[in-house]
């Protein structure tokens, strides 16, 4: 808000700075800072005009990257990219005809959004695989071939020749034993979806569904498109219900979660932002009763926002919406510096510059502690938290620097001492004070016992799902769609790697042989693997060799059906299916993402890799058995179990431990750092906030709120802010105006974080709750440890 500064610049004359060298430096810094702010503002307006498109609503973007397996990281990213533009809908009504009508109605409602539908006219795999059929056998047929005699083989072929029907669409002579038909049918087990009557249909639990699979025209994170899609889907549901009141429309897609998250975050941002701003302006107006104070405080907030936004958009390609929600809660912290300065002005007639110079050390100290606390956020491996840390540190620094650089020129000479401070002062006088007597120690002992009991009941929760949650209805629909379409989970999988494509396929085949019993036991629903569609060259040769046993039965069949003796020879001369041919074929498109291709490893040699995904993984026990497979009694070389949920939770647990150590270190470091300034009074500053932290933990233990990495971070923030109030009260001693300022600052922080606690993003909720509780307690405890006024 540079215009405002210019308008009030007449005051520069009122507050004529002393002509010292320091003042010249200050003036230079002020001009520099003004130029920087203007520059940042212009850059934001001109260079980031498309900022709406750069706001990320993808919660996955907040998750940590796996540095140890870059190949997997790249693959998962590509996999997610491919998936994020998909929208899957399942339509179901009373009977098949109505279901088809409802599907048509849904299609009509979505027309005009530019969606591309993956239609019912799927390429029939039989046409593609026909030339390679001799190398393709199901495990059952391989086993049968190993044990079959000439008689049984002859019988099998003749039986098929005389059969009333076969499920195959090939002439008998092209597949006399039905091996190829069996193999194609086994391919069908990969998905329950069947094309029928121009629709993709699927049956589940006695209900028929039509699946509508769409690809979005653009990004799933396009806010404009998201809203249009939500409206169209509501319309589609209404149209389907008009046909049949019990019609179902199940929706799944990243775009829906993104849309819901965006809508939620925007709502919360308005709530927190508007609530904090209104509260701030109301309280400030109430206390300072000065339009100029209000304008200047608003200006410091605007400056802080400009710095924070410019830094975030300059350092990150995309800024997450959650960062912005969190950022709005900084209003309560950033406003503190301006409040402290104004509070010192109340009823003070000292020259502005002298006053300011005396305040500067305290002002700097109160910048440092929260900034350090926020900086701890950046230590975590979570990109989202790093972004929040940078946003927060830049935001509060921006507000602080603007206060330090501009305020001396712009401040009014004095402000009248408000009457409102008096009741507060009387309350403070009656506030209990620490006395070194038996009564006080009894209370302390009691509190220690309560705190110890509460802390003993604390449970840790490092589950990533406790941090980010979507809309319950959408999650439920997504789960149902995944179950009905048997979509694999990308969170748990096998990573298969080898020196060549062939090695990967062979390793996959070895793995799949071990997975089949688990499918039979219903521990998993099924699996998706490239080798199902593209057997290794070794396997194809093996299959071809196995079928050479059929020469004798071929002769017998020729006799029985009056065929030329070499009738079967043409079938034996089939081609070998290679990865290149398969990858180039249109029918491999849905499964290509599983094939990771060649990536150079640490030593630079190319390593080929693929993913084997699992459908319907049932329970922890099954996951444990799968995890044990690669290193079991018969090890599977090149196969690695990847459990992303577990790994991230493990990472969270490690960082929770690290942050606990950081917190303990901070508890020791703060008194040591403050000792040179406060000497014997240090304990009076540190005690309230330490007690507040311990009681917050005890409260969480009693209330059953689990301890997460974020609660520790929140305690670090509490430490930073709580120490601030104490420093200020101790440093300025017990003037009514300092009390007023701290009260104001703390209540604004409480307001902002209290509003953050209302967030439905569990991560922000946890942060907001803990900080609110911690700040409230430390604020209530601080006066107890104040020295009595002389």
């Amino acid at each position: 808000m540079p215009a405002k500064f210019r308008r009030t610049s007449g005051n520069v004359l009122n507050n004529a700075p002393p002509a010292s060298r320091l003042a010249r430096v200050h003036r230079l810094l002020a001009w520099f800072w003004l130029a920087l702010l203007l520059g940042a503002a212009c850059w934001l307006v001109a260079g980031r005009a498309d900022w709406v498109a750069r706001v990320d609503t993808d919660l996955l973007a907040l998750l940590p990257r796996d540095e140890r397996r870059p190949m997997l990281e790249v693959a998962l990213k590509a996999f997610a990219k491919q998936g994020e533009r998909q929208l899957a809908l399942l339509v179901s009504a009373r009977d098949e005809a109505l279901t088809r009508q409802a599907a048509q109605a849904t299609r009509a409602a979505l027309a005009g959004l530019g969606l591309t539908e993956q239609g019912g006219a799927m390429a029939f795999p039989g046409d593609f695989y026909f030339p390679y059929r001799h190398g393709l056998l199901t495990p059952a047929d391989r086993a049968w071939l190993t044990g079959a005699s000439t008689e049984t083989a002859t019988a099998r072929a003749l039986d098929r020749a005389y059969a009333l029907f076969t499920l195959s669409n090939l002439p008998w002579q092209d597949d006399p034993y039905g091996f190829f038909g069996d193999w194609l049918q086994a391919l069908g087990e990969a998905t329950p979806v069947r094309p029928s009557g121009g629709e993709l249909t699927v049956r589940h639990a006695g209900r028929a569904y039509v699946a509508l699979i769409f690809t979005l025209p653009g990004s799933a994170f396009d806010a404009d498109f998201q809203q249009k899609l939500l409206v169209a889907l509501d319309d589609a549901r209404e149209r389907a219900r008009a046909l049949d009141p019990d019609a179902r429309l199940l929706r799944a897609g990243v775009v829906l979660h993104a849309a819901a998250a965006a809508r939620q975050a925007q709502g919360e941002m308005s709530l927190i932002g508007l609530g904090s701003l209104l509260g701030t302006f109301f309280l400030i107006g109430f206390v300072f009763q000065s339009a100029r104070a209000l304008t200047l405080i608003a200006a410091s907030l605007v400056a802080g926002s400009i710095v924070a936004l410019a830094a975030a958009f300059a350092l990150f390609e995309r800024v997450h919406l959650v960062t912005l929600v969190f950022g709005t809660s900084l209003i309560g912290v950033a406003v503190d510096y301006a409040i402290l300065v104004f509070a010192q002005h109340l009823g003070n007639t000292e020259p502005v510059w002298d006053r300011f110079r005396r305040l500067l050390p305290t002002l700097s100290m109160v910048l440092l502690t929260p900034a350090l606390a926020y900086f701890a956020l950046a230590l975590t491996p979570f990109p989202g938290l790093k972004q929040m840390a940078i946003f927060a540190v830049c935001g509060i620094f921006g507000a602080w620097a603007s206060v330090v650089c501009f305020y001396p020129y712009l401040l009014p000479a004095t402000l009248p001492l408000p009457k409102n401070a008096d009741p507060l002062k009387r309350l403070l006088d009656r506030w209990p004070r620490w006395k070194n007597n038996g009564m006080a120690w009894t209370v302390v002992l009691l509190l220690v016992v309560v705190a110890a009991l509460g802390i003993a009941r604390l449970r840790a929760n490092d589950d990533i799902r406790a941090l980010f949650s979507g809309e319950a209805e959408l999650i439920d629909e997504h789960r149902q769609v995944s179950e009905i379409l048997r979509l694999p989970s990308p969170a748990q999988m096998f990573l298969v790697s080898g020196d060549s494509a062939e090695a990967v396929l062979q390793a996959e085949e070895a793995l799949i042989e071990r997975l089949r019993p688990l499918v039979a036991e219903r521990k998993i629903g099924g699996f998706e693997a490239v080798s199902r569609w593209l057997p290794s060259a070794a396997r194809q040769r093996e299959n071809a060799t196995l079928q050479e046993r059929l020469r004798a039965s071929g002769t017998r069949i020729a006799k029985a059906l009056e065929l030329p003796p070499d009738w079967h020879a043409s079938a034996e001369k089939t081609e070998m299916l290679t990865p290149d041919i398969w990858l180039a074929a249109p029918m491999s498109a849905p499964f290509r993402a599983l094939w990771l291709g060649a990536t150079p490893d640490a030593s630079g040699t190319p390593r080929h890799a693929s993913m084997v995904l699992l459908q319907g993984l049932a329970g922890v026990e099954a996951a444990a058995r799968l995890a044990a497979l690669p290193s079991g009694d018969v090890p599977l070389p090149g196969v690695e179990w990847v459990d992303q949920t577990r790994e991230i939770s493990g990472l969270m647990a490690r960082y929770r431990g690290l942050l606990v150590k950081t917190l303990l270190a901070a508890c020791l470091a703060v008194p040591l750092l403050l000792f040179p300034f406060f000497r014997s009074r240090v304990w009076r500053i540190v005690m309230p906030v330490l007690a507040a932290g311990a009681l917050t933990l005890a409260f969480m233990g009693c209330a059953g709120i689990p301890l997460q990495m974020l609660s520790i971070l929140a305690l670090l923030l509490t430490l930073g802010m709580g120490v601030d109030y104490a420093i200020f009260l101790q440093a300025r001693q017990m003037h009514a105006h300092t009390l007023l300022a701290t009260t104001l600052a703390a209540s604004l922080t409480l307001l902002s974080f209290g509003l953050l606690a209302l967030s439905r993003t569990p991560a922000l909720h946890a942060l907001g709750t803990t900080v609110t509780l911690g700040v409230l307690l430390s604020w209530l405890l601080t006066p107890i440890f104040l020295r009595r006024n002389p």
Partner: protein
Amino acid sequence: MKIFKRCLMLAASWCLATPLHAADAGVLVAARERLALEPVTQGEFVQTRQLARIKKPLISTGRFVVARGLGVIWEDIAPFARTMRLTKDEILQTADGQTLMHLSADKEPAVAAVTGILFGVLAGDLDALARGFDHAGEVKGTHWRLDFTPRDANLARLIRQLTLRGARDIEQVEIISAAGDVTYIEFKAQTHAREIPADIGKRFE
């Protein structure tokens, strides 16, 4: 050989005589009126298969039972003895008490489509056939003929055409598969019952 010749003649007669007129509802209604569907139909069959690129016709004979609401039992006697039991969601093939093939619609949805067609053909459920196929045909006195061509592209991958001929009973069925294998079935010595006998009911359990 007589059956084979008839089969060829039949095939030739369609090609020459009857251009298909789409969805001739009158023929379907007329055929349904003439057809006397009883709860149980039993009889014998002679099946002739003419496989693509193979000269020798493959003839098999046996017995069949259609129990409406339950399913179809198709019992080959010669040249191979084996039994196929068709129900709505399942195809079970056995020989000497051993299971040769077991297909279930739960695992393979195409099975439901196949059983639907076979029911239509063997049990005379003309309306079920008319849902998935375009039909045409003619009626002469008590006799009728219906030709069915699949409407759905996926069904057309399996079957090119179905033809049913009959009067009170279905007498002849011809299935031309998409791959060109032709199956011609003639039903003989058909008897009916108003109730499903206990021994037949048992075979569907």
